[in-house]
């Protein structure tokens, strides 16, 4: 239990709190942390208004990857004092699907996730990543506020 913890982060306040909580648990249970940031390509209302040629898509994706890398480097800064094993990953795709697939692939035994991410009003219509993950994952999910 809490030997291999998956921590999806998106750079929001709650996701940093989730990371803090995960560090706490990993220290107590002597666990390993897998920190992941999932970027979703062309999930952008502005992109719907412009013609989708390959150049625009590539440009959008490289921008997203830059943001993803920044989030992960922020996470790395936070993990400086942590003694246990930790790794970082950047994934591309649908967030809740990728998180669940990654938990399976890594053989994680728990997921620690922030309750509300960056999306705000969109979440009200689309449903939140955290509630999807908590309903569909087969392992215990800790939702942090």
């Amino acid at each position, binding site marked *: *239990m809490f030997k291999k913890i998956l921590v999806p982060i998106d750079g929001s306040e709650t996701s940093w709190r989730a990371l803090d*909580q995960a560090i*706490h648990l990993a220290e*107590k*249970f002597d666990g390993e942390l897998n920190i992941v940031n999932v970027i979703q390509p062309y999930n952008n209302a502005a992109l719907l208004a412009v013609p989708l040629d390959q150049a625009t898509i590539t440009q959008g994706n490289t921008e997203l990857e830059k943001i993803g890398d920044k989030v992960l480097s922020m996470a790395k800064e936070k993990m400086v004092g942590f003694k246990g094993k930790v790794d970082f990953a950047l994934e591309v795709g649908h967030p809740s699907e990728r998180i669940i697939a990654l938990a399976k692939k890594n053989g994680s035994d728990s997921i620690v996730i922030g*309750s509300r991410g960056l999306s705000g009003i969109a979440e009200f219509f689309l449903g*939140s990543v*955290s*509630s999807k993950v*908590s*309903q569909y*994952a*087969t*392992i*215990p*999910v*800790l*939702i*942090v*506020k």
Partner: protein
Amino acid sequence: MLKKILVPVDGSDTALNALKFAMVIGEKFDSEIIVVNVEVPYDYTKLPPRQPKNEIEAEEMAKAPKEPSILDNAKSITEAAGYGKVMFLKTVSIDPAERISEVVVQREIDMVVMGNRGIGVVAGFFIGSVSAKVSQSVECPVIIVK
């Protein structure tokens, strides 16, 4: 950090799994576990207790051993694990999710551990599950156990 852990139970197996999970965490953090059962009044999805037909049957039913209640089941699990700091609560409310959130505020709970799906499998699909509501509405971290 985790002084009080709340475990809502409804008689389902996942709820008892949640209780076991809570005890593992509780041992590490030396926390008090509060087990709560919210009874829903006028729940027509449950069978009513059988009424005795005549006096002889009434006597027999009084003699027969009572089925253990939901909290009794929880109690036997904590006793089997030898967990000392446990408290049991029983409340009645039409909306379990709301009552659980109230208990969290009243008793200054640090973490909620609950099963993802209770006894209402089909109803849970249509109405929305208690665990989803609780995880969105309470202020403390929530662990959802399968």
